[in-house]
């Protein structure tokens, strides 16, 4: 790619870089605080307002959360649910999005409208619970996946991406004898890698953050995903008990433990981003088509 070597171009690049560097710093500081806080003592956290680098190093918080295998087990649950859920969701979302992206599909607008409608109107917690119960999903991991298998938002976005693919490509594939499945898997998906990466990430994060369905549909606490544990600790340690019940027999967990759990629960989902990121590079679409 040709570099822009004019003065204006360089100035633009410099200003742009500086601004982004500042923005990045601002967004990342509180996170550093959380990480630093997880490696220090609760005493230091209480006295110094905003720790960015621990004066006293302590691994107590991590020793505590890893002293039983609960966190590892629930992490395993979350990883499993996220993997299976994302694959499953991507698959049926892509099918539906592709079908609806085709302008020659009769009833397309009705379907689209009915999908948007579900973003606005919800039956509520109890009727959904009953459906899950009737399907016999209570206490199964499928209850964390099936009831939220398609996000209307993600489906619409993916459909949008598919629509931007030149129709000519599909036509020529058709002439070559591909059926609709063939077009989707051989032409459309390879051309939509940035979109696939994006929507997969959205699904993965949603599954990773599963909380309420676990509480409602899983009675066996051994099956709880990591977010239940995370939220429980954060809420207890933040003194956010909305009911304000008076209870001295239960002193809250240390702030350091709260931060350690945040770090542990966030790391795995952060790690998938770099793998997806290369698909966001400019020209990824063209590259994959040529390759």
């Amino acid at each position, binding site marked *: 790619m040709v570099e822009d070597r004019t003065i204006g171009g360089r100035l633009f690049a410099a200003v742009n870089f500086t601004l982004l560097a500042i923005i990045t710093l601002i967004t990342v500081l509180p996170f550093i605080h959380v990480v630093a806080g997880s490696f220090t003592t609760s005493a230091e956290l209480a006295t110094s307002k905003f720790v960015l680098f621990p004066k006293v190093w302590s691994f107590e918080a991590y020793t505590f959360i890893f002293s039983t295998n609960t966190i590892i087990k629930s992490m395993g649950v979350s990883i499993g649910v996220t993997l299976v859920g994302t694959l499953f969701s991507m698959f049926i979302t892509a099918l539906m999005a592709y079908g609806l992206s085709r302008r020659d599909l009769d009833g397309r607008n009705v379907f689209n409208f009915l999908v948007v409608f579900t973003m606005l109107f919800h039956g509520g917690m109890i009727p959904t619970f009953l459906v899950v119960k009737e399907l016999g999903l209570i206490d199964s991991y499928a209850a964390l996946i099936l009831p939220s298998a398609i996000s209307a938002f993600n489906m619409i976005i993916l459909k949008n991406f598919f629509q931007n693919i030149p129709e000519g490509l599909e036509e020529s594939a058709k002439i070559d004898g591909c059926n609709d499945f063939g077009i989707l898997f051989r032409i459309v998906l390879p051309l939509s890698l940035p979109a696939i990466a994006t929507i997969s990430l959205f699904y993965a994060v949603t599954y990773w953050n599963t909380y309420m369905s676990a509480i409602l549909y899983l009675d066996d606490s051994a099956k709880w995903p990591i977010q239940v544990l995370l939220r429980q*600790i954060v809420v207890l340690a933040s003194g956010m008990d909305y009911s304000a019940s008076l209870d*001295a027999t239960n002193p809250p967990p240390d702030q350091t433990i709260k931060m350690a759990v945040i770090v542990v629960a966030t790391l795995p989902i952060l790690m998938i981003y770099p793998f997806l990121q290369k698909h966001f590079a400019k020209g990824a679409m063209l590259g994959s088509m040529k390759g």
Partner: protein
Amino acid sequence: MNKKSFTLLLSALLTFSMLTACSGNNNKNNEAAPSNAGTSGGTDTATTAPEPEKPTEIKIMLPLNTTETPPDTIKTEVEKLTHTKLTYQFYPADTYEEKLNSSFATGSLPQVTYLKNQTTFIQMKESMKDGQFWEIGPLLSEFPNLNKLKPEILNNTKVDGKLYTLYIGRPLARQGIIYRKDWADKLGLKPPANVDELFAMAKAFTEQDPDGNGKKDTTGIVDRNELVYGAFKTVSSWFGTPNSWGEKDGQLAPEFTFPQYFDTMDFFKKARDAGYMNQDFAATSKTDAVNMFVSGKAGMYIGGSMQDIDTLNKDLIKNFPDAVLDTHSMVAGPDGKFAQWMIPGYNNVVLFPKSAVKDEAGLKKILAFFDKMMTPEVANLMYWGIEGTHYTVVDGRAKPADDKELIEREVKGFKDSVIGEAETNGMYQSLNVLPGRIHAEELLLENVKVGVAYPTAALDSATYTSKGVELQQIISDATYKYIYGQIDKAGFEKEVQAWKERGGEKIIEEYNAVYKK
């Protein structure tokens, strides 16, 4: 790499696509597997050796107040002692209401259902009246231990004169001041004998540099965004304000129509204006308030429970090894009289849904379990853990083991489910080491002697049940605004008027109608 991973994904998806394209009804496949998983939880219980009488199987649902669900250590012991097969289902306290409501609406509450607090109890009253839960009042006399439960507290949990619940007891009045005794000693201050001295102490702690660092960086009182369990209500009862409702000309009237309520607001207004308490208390969470205290920024922590002193002390001495804490609660009002507000004596209650407990025989079996829970043996096991592992007995009191994490994990989850209190279930009192805590325990008894009961605990008001929370918000907003100087006395009266118009008047009528009887 790019291409390879993609091909992999593609082939996976294609395989899937063939499946869906052919079978078409993949939802049914998903259905079959989970239903097996669903039952497997229940079946492994049946493998116990055959016994003359099968242990009673009881499923129990309760809020989880600890970081994670406790292991079976305690449960197994309880089962042995009570000849039961127990299934504990813990759900995070934070979202317990959602779980409770959806289980209730779908008829899937277990045999034993713990509520969360008094608010959820009030919400459930209507369904108790409707006969959704077993009435247990008449049966209690058949159980010698349950029969020991305190009648006055049972009375507070009755609905239309009928008893549906067992209660988890709490001391009636454990609120007071936790303060920096080292600061007070240094400045030559005695614990405040009356509200004026309390104010003077707040002032001295702010202005006279009690931590001796040469900077004016301390505050007298640290409070939080909570009028009841924070400082406000406790101080208001010292001023002589009735406990939520008081008698005025033979009629029940809400506390905020009494002049003492205004005196209390003036107290806090003066203290905040002068900088003797944290400026942002109306937005300060409990954790932030505790943080200010343990980081040596504040001298007095009022309200809640004086038993908090152990937790506060633990963190404070990490930062200030020389710090000394003490408790105090006997603060006289302007008229020289002592008064302490009291809670209705319970923290939570247990219900027995008719949808899960089919007949009275089944109910009696479950009550028999709770009857055994009220023996010292079981109560100690559930409250303190296993003797020798989680605690030891010193001078007839329980001394928790040094391994706090072990207790936190294995015992704490069960602690809040023990019904009754030490006087009735015979469990050990705690062995206290910290002088301030020993003092606190003495003060708890003193508090009750001048205790002011909550007069409407056993009374019922339909309007209060349905609109109490939102109406109370009008008053608490007005109270904060008065303290922060945004409205004056006339403005406050206007808000009280709004409270009355939106349903308060009705609550007054409804309470008085039943109060007379």
